[in-house]
């Protein structure tokens, strides 16, 4: 028997630098915020779905399920660690959602934690590169900014946009997301870069041409947590359950094996369509989107693959303001990965944190009239894709 599923409390640490905490300690902070706003007993939580990408490399820490459970006072219950690169906690969320939907559990904890800022840029960059093809891509020194730099050039050629013109257009993603990130007290760049200009993005340090420092999201320490349960369980405990209406997931291999599909982000199209189908919705039903803007160009192709804009029109859309908070489809009004930060394993459930808070009207720094939101998390070079649709309406 399928049950409706809802989100209760959500939690997120401040994103940025947390060298003084272990991964379980950092996660506990996000969990306490989620738990304290869920009106449940600790014993209601039947399992933990925890996302982490590279704890082995940054903190010498694996087998994190048990350590997380023990840290938050839940020793004994099943606790899983999920790894799907930047989509780790979104994969965890989807599996948790399926378990509740299909009657395995009634109430579970989902979340993630990562400490990439504290690891430093050289180790962080190498750790992130483990999400690429280890034998055939990393050997050339390909990095994540490199992957999206390659995609930016493919995009420019495919849609016949001069590269310099494209750089200007996608710079608006950074300007937009830094504007909202600077307003978000939990963002890594709170009160910073709120007045960034297109020229600042173009003239900042080149990382992987044509992408500069401001085209990239930062390295981040942070954690996020979400408690989900059956809709019936949730509505007995809190006033505003946010309903999980659909979730999609898809996979792919190395960038070079996907050929031209990467420009159209076909794995994302597949994942988003799975989520829309389950929700009985189309992109037109979505009021706000939290998408994986690990790089400026990444947000542009995400908005196309998710069906908000035609292929080749996403870069124009951000330049024309269509994805700003007052636009046709607001994208990343919490700052996104670029303005808020990207603690990889915590990013997916942090998107859900922002979506749920926004739908409840609890994001104090920004108000958008929205009833339905979608999240979009990308792991690797399209290796793992997850989309989740959330709504104030149960059906």
């Amino acid at each position, binding site marked *: 028997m399928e049950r409706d599923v809802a989100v209760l409390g959500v939690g997120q640490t401040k994103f940025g630098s947390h060298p003084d905490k272990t991964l379980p300690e950092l996660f506990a902070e996000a969990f306490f915020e989620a738990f304290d706003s869920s009106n449940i007993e600790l014993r209601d939580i039947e399992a933990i779905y925890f996302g982490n990408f590279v704890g082995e490399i940054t903190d010498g820490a694996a087998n994190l399920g048990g350590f997380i459970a023990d840290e938050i006072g839940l020793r004994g219950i099943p606790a899983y660690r999920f790894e799907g690169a930047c989509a780790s906690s979104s994969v965890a969320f989807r599996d948790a959602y399926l378990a509740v939907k299909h009657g395995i559990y009634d109430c579970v904890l989902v979340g993630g934690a990562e400490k990439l800022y504290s690891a430093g840029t050289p180790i962080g960059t*190498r750790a992130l590169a483990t999400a690429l093809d280890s034998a055939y891509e990393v050997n050339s020194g390909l990095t994540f900014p490199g992957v999206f730099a390659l995609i930016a050039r493919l995009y420019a050629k495919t849609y016949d946009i001069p590269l310099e013109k494209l750089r200007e257009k996608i710079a608006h993603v950074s300007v937009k997301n830094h504007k909202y990130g600077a307003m978000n007290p939990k963002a890594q760049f709170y009160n910073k870069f709120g007045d960034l200009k297109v020229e600042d993005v173009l003239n900042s340090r080149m990382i992987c041409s044509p992408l500069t420092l401001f085209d990239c999201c930062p390295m981040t320490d942070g954690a996020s947590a979400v408690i989900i349960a059956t809709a019936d369980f949730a509505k007995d405990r809190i006033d505003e359950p946010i309903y999980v209406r659909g979730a999609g997931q898809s996979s792919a291999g190395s960038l070079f094996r996907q050929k031209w599909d990467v420009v159209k982000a076909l794995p994302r199209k597949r994942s988003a369509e799975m989520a829309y189908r389950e929700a009985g919705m189309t992109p037109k039903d979505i009021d706000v989107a939290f998408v994986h803007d690990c790089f400026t160009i990444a947000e542009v192709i995400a908005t196309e693959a998710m069906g908000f804009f035609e292929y080749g029109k996403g870069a124009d859309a951000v330049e024309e303001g269509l994805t700003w908070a007052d636009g046709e489809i607001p994208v990343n009004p919490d700052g996104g990965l670029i303005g808020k930060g990207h603690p990889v394993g915590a990013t997916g459930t942090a998107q859900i944190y922002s979506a749920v808070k926004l739908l409840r009207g609890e994001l104090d720094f920004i108000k958008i009239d929205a009833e339905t939101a979608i999240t979009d998390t990308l792991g690797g070079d399209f290796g793992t894709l997850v989309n989740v649709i959330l709504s104030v309406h149960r059906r």
Partner: protein
Amino acid sequence: MFKDFFSALMEGKLIGVKCKDCEEITCPPKSTCNNCGSRNLERIELSGKGKVVSYTATYVAPLGYDGEVPYVVAIVELDEGAWIVGRLDVDAEKADKEDLIGKRVEVYGKEFPTEQFYPDKQRRVVPMFRIVE
């Protein structure tokens, strides 16, 4: 399997597999056809010629690659249709100044010191792309 690919590359041979069901050429080799998933494959040698489809001059490298910056990572579409990742042997400045997309290249192998996370613990071979026009 990946070691055979790089050993052959160091001997000047680019190897792949051809699907006996759909004719697709998969390079570097994979356990199944990159187009149809078939296991009905035969090992072949490719021409080693192709053209640049995208590239990026890399200025910030991962741990273990820091001594090599700046370097130019590229994707080449081989004449047989497969795409492979390697390095263009042009300097970063030239790569950023000119549009090298579409340039004809030849592939060869170059050995670099391995690093702690690379799966080959003896050496790291990089496919290099020499511009031929």
